[in-house]
């Protein structure tokens, strides 16, 4: 078996930042708790705090078991338990991939090719992601680091070109209806942060101190949310709340001289982020499945899962995962808490008990 591929801190930051950027870009207020436009800014800050809260078990994992992922820790309790955990988290990643794909298809079907079938595009995207995932985390890390630079440049360009469209009078005062809407919004944003699980699964592959990447990512995430809200609501005002993809709608306003419709740039960044996120999720689920089943079949796990997710997306129900994610934010937060906080706590507790028992035996 080859030696494990490792990625640097900057690459880890890039890979999870791009993943989170996709969530921010595809934000839709439809089906969400209603907020005043001014409440979105504190909600971004609250989201940062909630993410910190959701990361407690990740901090503990990094401190007590540095360089080990949850399946490694579960292995200390029992190999069977570890296998079960691998399968559970592989399924979580697969579900997250289905949600990402569903949103992408929704976007492609409504914005890019409203008159054509979006299936071909989705097939190409999944096939490309399977290929990327099969090349390993080193390649994904490197390409993410480059993509972050490209994405930031594209954003900066769009923001500059639409700066004159911003009207600060469109912001309503923050906390107009009290603290609750912002808190609910913050919880809703934070409960989509699958990146904590990604980071947890990537721990054994990180060269350097993962906490640097984590805090850089958290800061960049909050900043990106705040700046996007600023441009979305500064550009569109309350109209943004009626839009399926408000970030795209505001990018349509960008123009320089005779050139306009720079939303195509933003959409490009969106697609690139989706490609990298799906590739990473495919890679992570394959890594987990190879711990439960045959390790030599890693690339088969990538392609078979890719095929199954694609088939589910095309044949079963185009947007079922999207509807799932549109459920009440409490439900979503509960689901998220179960996998980010409760299950890791159980795993670490089991490993701790097992170690205590064996220590007692030895004594």
């Amino acid at each position: 078996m080859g030696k494990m591929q490792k990625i640097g801190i900057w690459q880890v930051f890039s890979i999870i930042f791009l993943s989170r950027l996709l969530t921010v870009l595809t934000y839709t207020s439809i089906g969400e708790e209603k907020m005043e436009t001014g409440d979105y800014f504190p909600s971004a800050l609250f989201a940062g705090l909630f993410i910190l809260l959701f990361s407690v078990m990740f901090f503990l994992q990094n401190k007590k078991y540095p360089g080990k992922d949850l399946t490694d820790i579960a292995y200390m309790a029992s190999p069977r338990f570890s296998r079960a955990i691998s399968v559970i988290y592989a399924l979580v990643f697969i579900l997250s991939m289905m949600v990402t794909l569903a949103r992408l298809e929704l976007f492609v079907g409504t914005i890019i090719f409203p008159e054509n079938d979006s299936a071909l595009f989705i097939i190409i995207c999944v096939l490309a992601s399977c290929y990327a995932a099969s090349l390993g985390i080193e390649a994904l890390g490197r390409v993410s680091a480059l993509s972050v630079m490209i994405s930031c440049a594209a954003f900066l360009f769009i923001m500059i070109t639409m700066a004159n469209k911003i009207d600060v009078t469109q912001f309503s005062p923050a906390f107009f209806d009290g603290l609750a809407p912002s808190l609910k919004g913050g919880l809703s944003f934070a409960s989509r942060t699958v990146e904590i699980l990604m980071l947890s699964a990537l721990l054994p592959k990180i060269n350097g101190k993962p906490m640097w990447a984590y805090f850089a990512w958290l800061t960049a995430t909050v900043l990106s949310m705040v700046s996007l809200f600023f441009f979305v609501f500064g550009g569109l005002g309350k109209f943004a709340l009626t839009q399926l993809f408000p970030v795209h709608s505001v990018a349509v306003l960008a123009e320089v001289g005779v050139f306009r419709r720079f939303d195509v740039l933003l959409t490009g960044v969106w697609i690139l982020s989706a490609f990298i996120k799906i590739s990473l999720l495919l890679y992570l689920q394959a890594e987990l499945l190879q711990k439960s089943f045959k390790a030599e079949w890693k690339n088969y796990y990538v392609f078979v899962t890719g095929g199954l997710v694609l088939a589910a997306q095309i044949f079963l129900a185009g947007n079922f995962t999207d509807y799932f994610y549109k459920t009440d934010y409490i439900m979503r937060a509960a689901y998220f808490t179960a996998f980010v906080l409760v299950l890791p706590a159980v795993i670490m507790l089991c490993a701790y008990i097992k170690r205590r028992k064996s220590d007692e035996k030895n004594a």
Partner: protein
Amino acid sequence: MISMGDWINKEILKVTAAEAKAATPSVTVSENLEDNIIYFKEKLGESFDILYKQTFIGSHKAVLIMDDGMCDNLLVTQQVVNPIMTAEKMPQNASEQMAYIRDKISSGIDQKEEHSLDEAIKDVLSGLVVLMIEGVPFCECFGVQGFPKRSIENAQTEVQESGAQEAFIESFKDNVALIRRRVRSPVARFEVMEIGKTSQTRVCVCYFSDRADQAVVEAVKGKLKKADLDVVLGAGYLRPFLEPDVTTLFSAVGSTERPDIACAEMAEGRVVILVDGTPFALVVPYLFMENFQSLDDYDHRPYYSAFIRTLKFFSFVLSVFLPGIYVAICTFHQEILPASMLYDTAVQESITPFPVMLEAIFIHFVYEIVREAGLRMPKSVGHAVSIVGALVIGDAAVSAGLVAAPMLIVVAMTAISSFVVSKIYYPVSLLRFAFMVIGGITGFYGIVIGFGVLLVNMCAVNTFGTPFTAPFAPLHIGAVFRDSFLRISWKLLGKRELKIQSMEK
């Protein structure tokens, strides 16, 4: 990342095992001269260019064997035949005669004692004269090579404005001399090996012993030894054996026809490989970024070099993506174009009979045919082909309404851009077609995915432990600002050498 040491060790073990398997016992030179001659004739057959000059040295039978076309007849006469024939104090004992000829008579420096007949045959075929004397269990080889060769000429594919103009030629020794002349330092090492079961082509691995990673040198030698080829007629034969495991369109093995570039590469810790009969040297490890660098960049002022390199990169982007993006815009994203431009383009495209994607593929295909024809024809005819292709076909196609004028502008811009980065012309031309198809089917967003795949493919490549996309992925800030798109002044650049190993991360 697989550690360099582990990977090298694995490679070396594989090569050692292969060597042990391939090793066959060699036939030694017999004291019986006839046996030696019979062995030579058995091995070489009745080739007319192999000459056997049988003579007597004192009372002992002797033979001089040489390849007529590979030796300089004047040197043979002056350094070997004449001194032996006119020697006055030749000893009587055969072994003493050989020692006397070697030490006292022959005036050449390049001579060696050979005990193996197979090695002696190789020497004859390499242009040495072999002397065998009855009763002596070894032979003496004299270096008197003098085969026909091209003189050193100007570089054709890597033209430089200022600085040296010399290029490598087919002669192996001359190429080594061209490098040695520029680097008169004992750290410059030239190790020769033979590759090709039949051709037994000489391949020279050149490096600076104080800068090249010894593990990389060993890995290069190991990979070359593993090249299971019958005949090696050019450096291109060996390229696949040096390429990394991940399949990619861009080669991770560089090539240069300029000795000064070869020296510069060696100074950065790289390994240069010279192949006998090839006027190009291979360079490993080779990074993608190097496709945008030339020796002229180091002659100009840094800001101009930065401008030129950025221009080259922009040309690369244009040559790969422009036709695809044009097809995507015309097919799916017309809203991007300013109104007046959209109107003009739409009018032009509406009169052509084919969809934009097919039109683009067709016209680029025609362009590639014209280019290939111009390249392979004699220069005078080549120009005519270009004129017919560019002016006659292009103009007539637009007039006939087969191709839209904007498409022709796109083709022209793409063609010129691709010549700016001529080192990667072939992968670029293939990618161009791929992106035209993707752009025509899925629009700009398909191109973005294609770009992502291309990027991830390139990022997956490690060439001898160095990432192909360094110093950008993984990011190496020092190298990026030192000598990538930007280049710092020689005052700073010369202070500390940049080794390729520093990119390993």
